[in-house]
């Protein structure tokens, strides 16, 4: 397969090795570098399953026989963060687990994406109490949120397909898109503390219920 490398520019004199013109008997294709790279990335995402609770069982179901996530280029489960592209955070994340999740995210090499699977990972869900992080987007940047408690395997697969679309639309020219986010050194937070408090305000009647009906 030949490749049109016009966009790169700056190659030296035309030798046998870096000649531009394909021979007539060689098949070749011309494309945008962005498209080629994104196509490769989107269709061979290596997931890092960070399964904690109920959602992890539905995640296992999507890897198993009936749903078979391998059809989407995810044949290889990377249980090591250093060899993976996509973090699937499935299940609730208590505060005790927060530094672990942060560390795993930092261990993953760029390019990397994160899927927050289920209501608890996305917002804290039904656990609006002292122990549970109210949405993992306060710890790591999240690309796709999959709602549900737990989401069905179809839901997870749809979320992954949305992520593939997002990967396909990435532009390498966009500055900083693949830069590592650095947390504030003193507080270790990515986003301002006031914003976290505002985001995780109690809603509905989740905590305004008294212990005992009057």
């Amino acid at each position, binding site marked *: 397969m030949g490749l049109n490398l016009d966009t790169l520019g700056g190659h030296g004199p035309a030798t046998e090795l870096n000649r531009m013109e394909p021979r007539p008997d060689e098949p070749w294709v011309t494309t945008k570098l962005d498209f080629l790279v994104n196509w490769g990335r989107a269709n061979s995402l290596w997931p890092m*399953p*960070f*399964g*904690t*609770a*109920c959602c*992890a*069982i*539905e995640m*296992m*179901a999507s890897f*198993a*026989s*009936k749903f078979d996530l391998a059809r989407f280029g995810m044949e290889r*489960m990377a*249980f090591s963060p250093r060899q993976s592209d996509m973090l699937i955070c499935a*299940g*609730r994340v*208590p505060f*005790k*687990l927060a530094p*672990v999740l942060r560390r*795993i995210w930092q261990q993953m090499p760029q390019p990397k994406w994160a899927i927050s699977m289920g209501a608890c990972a996305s917002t804290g869900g*039904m*656990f609006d*109490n*002292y*122990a*549970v992080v109210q949405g993992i987007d306060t710890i790591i940047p999240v690309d796709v949120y999959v709602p549900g*408690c*737990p989401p*069905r395997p179809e839901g997870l697969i749809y979320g992954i397909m949305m992520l593939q679309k997002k990967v396909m639309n990435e532009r390498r020219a966009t500055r900083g898109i693949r830069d590592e986010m650095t947390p504030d050194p003193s507080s270790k937070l990515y986003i301002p503390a006031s914003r976290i408090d505002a985001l995780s305000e109690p809603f509905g009647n989740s*905590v305004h*219920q*008294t*212990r*005992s*009906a009057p």
Partner: protein
Amino acid sequence: MSQKRTLEVELSTTGLGPDGRPRRVPLVVGGDAGGLALASPPADGPDLEGEHMLINIGPQHPATHGVLRLVLELDGETVVRCIPHIGYLHCGFEKIGEYRQYNQIIPWTDREDYLNSIGNNIAFALGAERLFGIEITERCKVLRVIGAELSRIASHLVWLGTTCIDIGAFTPFLWSFQERENIYNLLEAWVGARMTTSATRVGGMAADIPDKWVEGLVGFIRTFPKTIDECDRVLTKNGIWVGRTAGLGVMTPDEAINWSLSGPMLRASGVAYDVRRDFPYLDYETYDFDVPVGTAGDVYDRYLVRMEEMRQSVRILDQAVKRLPDGPVNVDDPRVILPPKSKATSEMESMIHHFKNVMEGPRPPVGECYVAVESPKGEKGYYMVSDGTSKPSRWRIRPPSFLNLAAIPRMVEGHLLSDVIAINASIDIVMGEIDR
């Protein structure tokens, strides 16, 4: 450490004793030196100069079945000591229970041992009914037995699949998850959810089974034993499987009782204690089923016990389907059961009951009760204390896998590092239940 007492520790560094286990030597705690000391140094002397190594497994590790963390001290490849760290999934269930009405707690019971959702719903409903003093209907009892046994099979199938992956066999994982999908389809047709069912209510069920549902269940009862037989053929006499499981993590009957193990862990150690038979509920004493018991207390026996339990569950399901009576599912008590929506919008009295039930919630009399059921992991208990208001003043979960896991330091010491994975898998832990 204030008082002085004598312990026994196993010194794996001194080699194996005559019984094939690491040698045991007495230790004095809190003696003159204030710390710990060997009561009498072994004659040949342990090799104290050897380099010990600490390694850390988890909290994110595919073989820990969740977010368990084990710190292991190794001598070569032999585990000298194992220190489990739990709590990475502590979500404050019991605290939340104090802020919710009894029927509102049921969705939380789904998510605590999430492999056995219906079983937990049933256990909680039984506890609440005992607290309220309600007797449920006959049809409801049989439906609950069907739900409990289906979820027992589903839970054991996850155990089978994940344990096989841990030990190196991939195929049974695919087979067991295929069967789980069949169970999920049944549950979905019944209560509308695959995993988090919230199937029960205080005094009855959320829904009766739909038409033709029983036919689906009968089909499952007919086909499921074939899958079990197939797994049986692949594993039970497989040399690699036996080699990786036999003789590991032995607990004697006395030890198992003293460590408060329950469920298949206890029965594999030769104690025939099954809550369904010894402290029955839901009329389990009228069903004909066997309680499988192991005689070696190792990982292989736990495997055999769980495989047989799935077959016995099929037997119970078969009997339950045959005796399923007609009649109402919910008790006829407007204090706890919501009236049908059509009545609530058309009749004054029903509307009042509906309003009172939703806004205030049913109120049990003052008192407390502890109701235990046999979950796939063991004795699952709910302890509820009522102060006469619509919310429990204490809701306590007795988690079987918490107590089963507490014995892991005892079970893995003296074994190889790779056997830790097999022993840990054999406990069948669910971190959601352990950490709550």
